[in-house]
């Protein structure tokens, strides 16, 4: 059965091909059917695999399918082969499941767009590449998926290509992630040079044999891979592209820039966990990057005016949590949070999309308001999403995944109270801005007229995602609640658990849970008050902290920094040397030749007698030379 794994990426690719080659000849209805059914079938196959793995896992908990010999050389033989294990399944199930729902949502959301077919073609292409990325069993094939999703991200951010600003955002996304990709490439070269293979399981098996714990090579390899992950997952210092990426259509933001592609970095680190385990400083770096990102991005999310930018910063922040978990070795914790985050963040984006559509493409939070009554379905689903984001205790999946993550951070030998404290601070801010979102959009006076209401398919998708966001946390519960460890057991089939739970810490766990709950509830309450009844106090505060406000608004001014130290110097250099200085140097030779020409030209005066004199002089000189030799 598992040999059918090639169908997973092949179906969406086929959908892409049909839609591209068919072009405008395919009707909208047919297009929607093709796009949704390919991803839908992939989803079904994926679910069958997952169930199969849970009931009766294959030998070594993995199944490899080699499709063809791709780069067969003596020094390295790279097959085009897919590997199905629990890690790739965890990813693939989210990609196909959420992907399918977003396809369904888009059939309605994009119905007014003239480029309907192109949109679905790109969307299908994206799902195909993303599946290739998580199913690849060697680094080169992984790169195909890795860059492929980058391409789709570029295409979809710049989907409305007539506006140059969209094009700029799209290019920024591609180029910034490419900087990370360059690091990843170098990392791959290093791994190959040291281990002689690019097959990921082999690399993980060989690395501990060849490299000592804490060796420089392992550190370099891990850090370079981290570079790639940081770029793709929009973590510090390469996070600047994600807020701008919101220029794309909202379903794209939900699928690519929230649920799936941006978490590819998390996947990559989880996939190469063995290398990171060999390099504790690299683990520390991951944790530090994660915690700094989660806090800075949360602060930036707090002050944004654009609803999608709030969600974008919150995505950066949530992925920061995942990185923190990865950095302390809590593989299952990171992936669990990835999963719940995919649901509730997709839900938030899609609900936000419904709001934006209803308000005639208005994205400014301060021009929304009072939608609770007019769009009740959207309100309730958005509220559930926001509650998950804030990790409201007990009822939301976000709570369970974040608590597992935080608990792992607390007890892990790589983690500790400091990381936990930063994460808690982030959680407080997260609750604050989640409440702010809900308050500004759905409460208070209505500031813009509702011009459209979401239809059946949008509503259906929102409800499904909301239900998942509420109950999805049930696959993994804190052991003090009940002993449910379905997800971590599933992941542990592929990645051995690093953070072992010491016994007898129940009291601690209870305390932490309580503290976290109190902080989250406090944050949410404060947010609700500030953006509801306490508005005057908020405005007074805002008036006094204008500079800080602007600083956070611009995402800690990273854009300006990079603009000053990288972009503008490069552009200026390019402008300055547009005509190629080397060419000028070549003209030096031309100039010399010309000067010599002018000098020698004088002798060519055309006077017979002087030529004769020249001949005579020459003859005399030759005679003299012969005489005195």
């Amino acid at each position: 059965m598992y040999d059918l794994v090639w169908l997973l990426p092949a179906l969406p690719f086929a959908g892409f091909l049909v839609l591209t080659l068919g072009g405008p000849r395919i009707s909208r209805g047919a297009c929607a059917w093709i796009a949704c059914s390919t991803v839908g079938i992939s989803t079904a196959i994926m679910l069958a695999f997952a169930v199969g793995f849970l009931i009766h896992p294959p030998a070594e908990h993995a199944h490899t399918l080699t499709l063809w010999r791709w780069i067969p050389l003596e020094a390295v033989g790279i097959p085009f082969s897919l590997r199905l294990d629990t890690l790739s399944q965890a990813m693939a199930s989210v990609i196909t499941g959420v992907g399918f729902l977003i396809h369904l949502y888009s059939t309605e959301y994009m119905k007014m767009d003239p480029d309907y077919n192109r949109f679905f073609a790109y969307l299908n292409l994206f799902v195909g590449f993303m599946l290739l990325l998580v199913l690849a069993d060697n680094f080169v094939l992984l790169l195909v998926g890795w860059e492929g999703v980058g391409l789709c991200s570029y295409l979809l951010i710049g989907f409305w290509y007539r506006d140059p600003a969209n094009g700029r955002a799209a290019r920024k996304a591609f180029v910034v992630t490419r900087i990370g990709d360059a690091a990843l490439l170098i990392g791959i070269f290093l791994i190959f040079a040291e281990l002689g293979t690019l097959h990921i399981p082999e690399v993980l098996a060989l690395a501990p044999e060849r490299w000592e714990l804490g060796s420089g090579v392992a550190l370099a390899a891990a850090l370079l891979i981290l570079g790639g992950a940081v770029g793709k997952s929009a973590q510090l210092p390469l996070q600047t592209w994600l807020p701008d990426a919101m220029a794309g259509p909202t379903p794209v933001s939900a699928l690519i820039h929230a649920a799936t592609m941006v978490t590819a970095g998390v996947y990559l680190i989880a996939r190469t966990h063995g290398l990171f385990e060999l390099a504790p400083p690299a683990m520390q770096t991951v944790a530090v990057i994660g915690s700094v990102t989660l806090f800075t991005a949360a602060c930036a999310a707090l002050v944004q005016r654009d609803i999608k930018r709030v969600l974008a910063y919150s995505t950066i922040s949530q992925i920061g949590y995942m990185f923190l978990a990865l950095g302390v070795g809590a593989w299952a914790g990171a992936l669990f949070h990835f999963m719940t985050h995919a649901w509730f963040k997709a839900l938030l984006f899609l609900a936000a999309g419904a709001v934006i559509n209803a308000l005639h493409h208005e994205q400014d939070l301060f021009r929304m308001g009072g939608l609770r009554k007019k769009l009740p379905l959207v309100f309730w689903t958005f509220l559930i999403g926001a509650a998950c984001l804030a990790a409201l205790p007990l009822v939301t999946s976000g709570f369970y995944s974040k608590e597992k993550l935080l608990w792992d951070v607390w007890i892990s030998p790589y983690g500790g109270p400091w990381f936990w404290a930063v994460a808690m601070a982030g959680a407080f801010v997260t609750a604050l801005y989640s409440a702010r979102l809900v308050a500004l959009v759905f409460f208070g006076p209505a500031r813009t007229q509702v011009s459209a209401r979401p239809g059946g398919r949008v509503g259906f998708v929102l409800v499904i995602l909301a239900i998942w966001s509420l109950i999805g946390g049930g696959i993994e519960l804190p052991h003090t609640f009940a002993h449910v460890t379905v997800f971590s057991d599933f992941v542990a089939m592929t990645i051995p658990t690093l953070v072992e739970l010491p016994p007898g810490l129940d009291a601690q766990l209870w305390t932490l849970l309580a503290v976290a709950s109190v902080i989250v509830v406090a944050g949410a309450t404060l947010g609700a008050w500030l953006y509801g009844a306490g508005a005057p106090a908020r405005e007074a505060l805002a008036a006094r902290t204008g500079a800080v406000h602007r600083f956070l608004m611009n995402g800690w001014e990273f854009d300006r920094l990079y603009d000053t130290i990288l972009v503008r110097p490069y552009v200026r250099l390019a402008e300055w040397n547009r005509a190629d200085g080397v060419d000028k140097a070549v003209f030096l030779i031309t100039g010399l030749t010309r000067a010599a020409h002018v000098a020698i030209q004088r002798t060519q005066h055309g006077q017979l007698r002087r030529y004769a004199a020249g001949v005579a002089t020459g003859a005399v000189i030759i005679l003299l030379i012969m005489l005195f030799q």
Partner: protein
Amino acid sequence: MILFWLIALPALGGVFALLAGRRSPEAARWISIAALAAGFALAIPYLGRATETGWLAEFSLPWIPRLGISFHLAMDGLSLLLVLLTYLLGILSVVVSWRSIDRRVGFFHFNMLWILTGTIGVFIATDLFLFFFFWELMVLPMFLVIGIWGHENRNYAAIKFFIFTQASGLLLLVAIVGLAFAHFHTTGVLTFHYDELLGAELTAVAQMWLMLGFFVAFAVKVPAFPFHTWLADAHSEAPTGGSVILAGVLLKTGGYGLIRFVVPLFPEASAAFAPYAMAMGVAGILYGAKLAFAQSDLKRLIAYTSISHMGFILLGVFSWNELALQGSVVQMICHGFSTGALFILAGCLYDRIHTRDLSRMGGFRDQAPRMAALGLFFAMASLGLPGLGNFIGEFLVLVGAFQASVPLTVLATLGVVAAAVYSLWIVQRVFHGTPHSSSRITDLNLREFGALAVLLIGLLWFGLYPKPLLDTADKPLRELRNHASERFERATELRRHGEAVFRIPDPGAQTHPVRRTDAPETHRHSAATIALP
């Protein structure tokens, strides 16, 4: 005999096209296509035999026996790939010139076919004198193509092209003759035959100078930084067909020369020079990418991307290991495809809006979605998107080069970022953005679409299933490595340990590591004096 026909077909086709062109331009075009297609069909069957050892085919006629010069042709997998590339791009360049060339059509096709004749000759000549003959044969018709059918600034570009290639050709001639005489002095046999010269005993000094002669000639053609300045003018001023041939095929003769001649003939000298050559490659990658980004002329931009891409070949060849060499070969083929396609697109745009100025383009996706889709595809190929052929080439080169030099490879890898910048810039400037009000364009017609589709399929194929390509190049590259790797690596070791592999002219004390102990003393002296004119 088939090898002879590989050369004779385009040559004769050219003559017939010239004659027919006086009566009917259409006939000249069809004759050219027929001649090239016939050559292509003749060469194709050799693909299946590419795993055989030695030459796949040989052809020899005596020419100037007194000087050891013969009309000797031979083909192996490496030559075969490039010959096929030449024929394919030749056909496409005739196809895309169908409407845009309307003056002196017969003569145009004569020149195009004679360029191809020269190029194919370069790829399959195994007599160095014959090689030089074909090397020069390429230049003159190209000069005419640029000079007669080019854009506004064509005379300047044509003369620049001519001077650069002629000057480097002179160096090549001197080096070839020097090599033959050095070989004569050690063995007493005067020959220009590649196989025999391959084992020539040379002193360190002679090797260095001869290597540099060959290297500079090929580096100008590749073109390597800082010898690249002719390229931007020649590419941007040439007519579409000429640009396709120039970028797709002519540049490859340089890469081919580096692989076939420079390192195998002079392993120690190459090893000593390798860091500089690789640095030139990296400089070309970064510098070309930077220049490309700054251009406002579309064809000029594409021309500079060529410099960037061809830098990988220099980097790969002088790393001299299996991965890097295979990567260089793949990169040569795929660069021919992707850049050829971009030039065809630029030509299609020029036919429609009569400008190459990017500031007068924009928003063409509205009116020409097919062109936009293809433009996007080839821009992606040129930035090295994994899954397309160029990625295989670049990746293999970089993996191989990493084993030769870590810092240079790291710098070269930064080139992928720069490549993204300029490739996306093309897409943005030409196809995206708000439509330019003054320009209305039609989408690609079937002829143009067909030509580009061939290249698209090729790039996808090489990206997803490069095995045939790699297998075909495997045997010849293996033989070249068998021949040179040991000496190359020994010299590299010495260089790494800080020993001077070469000390420049000191004929009295010849204690160079390169010295072969079995060579008689007198021979070494005489060879050294030849190399020091």
